[in-house]
């Protein structure tokens, strides 16, 4: 079953002077892990933002789980984000004055009702049971990113989008976070992950490479052997 359908998606900035995305089309199946790859400025984050309803396209269509994201008004887009999408950012984007559990509860609050026990369970599942009441500055980068993942998952979204989720992590924390994504994938979550790191991309079911806003290659063939990651081994 196809969860995401993107057709001729274009995004231009600065009064059409800068075309970040140029007539991109792709489909993503439900439960699939798709890696969006490419160099900086290739348009991968723009594509992710448009699919997640964080931005609006200049032209083209995005349909996620039957919702025409491109045509939604602001209130409908907010509802789409809270019901359908969980977002993980490179810079974590946790609120510094809230504890780990409160950061997770914030997503619950916007969705329906904040439930501290449920939020704590989500953190336990990402291995942060002993960090519930720590604030972001008291957590390592990997721990902060796992809080962000717990926050992204708390409302049981159909789609998890992650923009360079390991971009700010050291090797150990990167491995922990990627293991978390592998578990999510194994549980059947649809994952859209932006990375410029081929080793991270190799974990996905499928990779799409973007350059200058266009899809350059798509499919399983990448010049990197991901067998070790698939086995859950750490990359040195």
């Amino acid at each position, binding site marked *: 079953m196809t969860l995401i359908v993107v057709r001729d998606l274009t995004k231009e900035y600065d009064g059409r002077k800068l075309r970040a995305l140029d007539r991109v089309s792709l489909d993503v199946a439900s439960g699939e892990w798709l890696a969006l790859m490419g160099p900086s400025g290739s348009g991968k*984050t*723009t594509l992710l*933002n448009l699919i*997640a309803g*964080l*931005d*609006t396209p200049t032209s083209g269509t995005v349909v996620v789980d039957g919702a025409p994201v491109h045509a939604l008004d*602001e*209130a409908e887009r*907010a*509802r789409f*984000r*809270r*019901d359908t*999408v969980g*977002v993980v*950012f490179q*810079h974590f*984007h946790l*609120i*510094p*004055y*809230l504890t780990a559990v*409160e950061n997770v*509860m*914030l*997503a*619950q*609050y*916007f*969705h329906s*009702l*904040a439930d501290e026990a449920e939020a704590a369970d989500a953190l336990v599942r990402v291995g942060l049971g002993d960090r519930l009441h720590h604030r972001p500055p008291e957590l390592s980068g990997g721990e902060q990113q796992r809080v962000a993942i717990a*926050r992204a998952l708390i*409302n049981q979204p159909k789609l998890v989008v992650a923009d360079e989720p390991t971009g700010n992590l050291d090797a150990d924390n990167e491995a922990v976070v990627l293991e978390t994504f592998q578990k999510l994938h194994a549980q059947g979550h649809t994952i859209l992950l932006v990375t410029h790191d081929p080793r991270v991309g190799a974990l996905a079911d499928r990779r799409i490479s973007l350059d200058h806003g266009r899809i350059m290659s798509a499919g399983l063939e990448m010049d990197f052997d991901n067998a070790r990651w698939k086995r859950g081994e750490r990359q040195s």
Partner: protein
Amino acid sequence: MLWRLVRRSMRERRAHVALTLLAVAVTAALATALLGVTFAIRERMARELRAFGANILIVPRSAPLAVTVGSLRYVPSQEEAYLEESELARLKTIFWRHNIVAFAPFLSRTVEVAGQRALLVGTWFDKRVDVPVPSRRFSFASGASREVAAVEGGWNTGLEALVPSWQVDGRWVREGSGGALVGRALAARLAIEPGQTLEVELEGRRARFPVHGLLRTGGVEEDQIFVELAAAQALFGRPGRVEKVQVSALVTPDNALAVRARTVGPESLPPSEYETWYCTPYLDSIVFQIEEALTGARGTAIRQVAEAEQAFLGKVTGVFVLSSALGLATAGLGVAATTARAIFERRAEVGLMKALGGDRRQIARLLLVEAGVTGLGGGIVGALLGVALTRVIGLWVFATPIESHVLLLLAILGVAPGVALLGALGPLRAALAVPAATTLSAE
């Protein structure tokens, strides 16, 4: 969760919160003090101006044809008409009884003194008037009725209260002392000084008055002699009679209703307008009520005095209101700028909340509750400061503290969060308008 978020946020950004709270508190204190003083200044200034004399003259309805030459006054005996002294306490029974600041009765004749003629005026200097007036209910043709609070016990009034601006070299006459005040010009002509005795004669009757003081008024009173009313009545053979009463009353400036009532007569007004007119302290409505209270009395508004006072008060109040408005506008802008800055600095947070699925209403509620709580806190602190400031200004300017009105304080507590919210609205709207992706990628 809402309050938990607000509490955490305010604790985290306590420096900002304190700055905003301070800005609101200063604005609220200024508002409380300036508006409090503005409301009070009219009444206080009016009382101060009342020191310069009466604004209502009461004479008998069939006023005598008196001839005045300089400071002297001649009344043909067949033209004489009087008011009853015993009725004067009724002035404190009228609807606007509390606005009667002072009054003094007068009875005068031209007498011979040391071979010269001078006007001898009998009056009250500082008379104790018993006014056992219970609370009184006034009913109107419109069906409405209003109760006026009782005047308890006695009340002192007379020349000293009516014209406290008059100056006396020596001392004022105390009631029952039998003394006299002599106008300074007359005293100079008679070569008389305080401590000496003045002998006067009228139609063969003689009376002696110890001079207690010399009067300086800048007017015709400096050629006159003032003695106790009872002594004058005895000398003139008119016991219990007075020829006129001067009244000093606090009045409100005339408006269209007052002018219409004066043009068509108050009785011709519709019942509801009549009630409004009667229950507003216009000069004419107080005169009207005095005429109701005293038998055979005709009240005359000394309009020149009243209008000059009202014009002056109007200008003073206008200047005060204008400067208060300017001060409050400036302070309000400061609050708005502080709140705006706080929201502006949180635009990344707003972007994150949008990314997490927060809609405009939810995000706005979070941030506005925080601004409102800060505004309310500042309002409470400011109102308390304002109450103290108002008292200090009252003591400084009028030598008595000005009490802040409860309604004003409630208004301030309502407006202070409003100003903070108003300052937050613009930047919040701007922050919400930016796509989440743009805000987050800028961080």
